[in-house]
């Protein structure tokens, strides 16, 4: 069986299920879909960890374009463990929290919670799985939009204000992140993390000059 596509499943599957939840609107059915998506993501990341025993890194080039040119999703030991941790936590949360969701939200608005939760999880899984700096920015924004909605769903009307403030601060932060990605792209000509790291001058400057700012000798 071809297992190359495994790293992309935890990011793409919740992203595909989220608009379905928005269309269905039935609380129980949305819950079943969310639990199914989270279970498959959890199992996929577990299976990916198992695959890592035979090879150092699972890599999936999107659209068949290989790493320095195209967008690459890669799972190694570090982010494989992180991905499994996050997806199993999300799976447990969707199973266990659904019972007490009715105290926090009206029954007719449960599908907003499931949609926003799936978007947030897709963003987090994408940030972990991707090996492309700009793709990481897009997924950071997706997970941020999900969390803005989750905060705005609170019972208290001050939740709206909190969500608004978080939106302002989060967007400013993400814009500075994209500025940094742009500067790295101008300096190295690449967006792939490993490709940026293979540029010795940039790595030297990032590690040693930043280190000498922190610890002036």
């Amino acid at each position, binding site marked *: 069986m071809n297992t190359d596509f495994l790293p992309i499943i935890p990011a793409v599957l919740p992203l595909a299920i989220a608009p379905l939840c928005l269309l269905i609107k039935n609380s129980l059915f949305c819950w079943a879909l969310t639990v199914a998506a989270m279970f498959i993501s959890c199992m996929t990341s577990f299976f990916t960890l198992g695959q890592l025993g035979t090879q150092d890194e699972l890599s999936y080039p999107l659209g068949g374009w290989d790493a320095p040119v195209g967008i690459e999703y890669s799972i190694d030991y570090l982010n494989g463990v992180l991905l499994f941790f996050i997806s199993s936590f999300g799976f447990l949360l969707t199973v266990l929290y659904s019972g007490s969701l009715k105290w926090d939200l009206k029954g007719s608005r449960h599908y907003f919670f499931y949609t926003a939760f799936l978007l947030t999880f897709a963003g987090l899984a994408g940030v972990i799985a991707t090996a492309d700096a*700009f793709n990481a*920015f*897009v997924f950071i*924004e997706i997970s*941020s*939009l999900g969390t*803005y*909605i989750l905060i*705005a769903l609170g019972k208290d*009307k*001050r939740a*709206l*204000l909190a*969500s*608004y403030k978080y*939106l*302002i601060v989060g*967007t*400013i932060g993400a*814009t*500075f992140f*994209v*500025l940094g990605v*742009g500067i790295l*792209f*101008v300096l190295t000509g690449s*967006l792939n993390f490993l490709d940026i790291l293979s540029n010795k001058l940039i790595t030297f400057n990032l590690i040693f000059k930043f280190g000498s700012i922190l610890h002036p000798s």
Partner: protein
Amino acid sequence: MSYIGLINYVAAILLITAGLYIVLSSPNLVKKLVGLSIFQTSAYLIFVAPGKIFGGTVPVLDPNLMTYSSPLPHVLILTAIVVGVATLSLGLALAVRINESFGTIAEDKISDVNE
């Protein structure tokens, strides 16, 4: 070294500063979002400007063309603009809901309601 080539960065940084100042200083929630939009868009200007090479053309394979401009920054910024529009629309929707709940979109009046 000629400094005339850096004038687009100066303009973009001035715009970034203006947008950030509007976000920090304006008490109106919608005007804050306008400032945020200016801030984001001018950050994209810095990203897009290095994509242009004088004399560079579109990246098509042709024996007569030697210098190409990289199309990658434009594609990336197209994605970033879409993300920015999504953020802006979510912020405006939140401003509408805040107006329904608190009856105002002036930030200083909202803090009076809370006390």
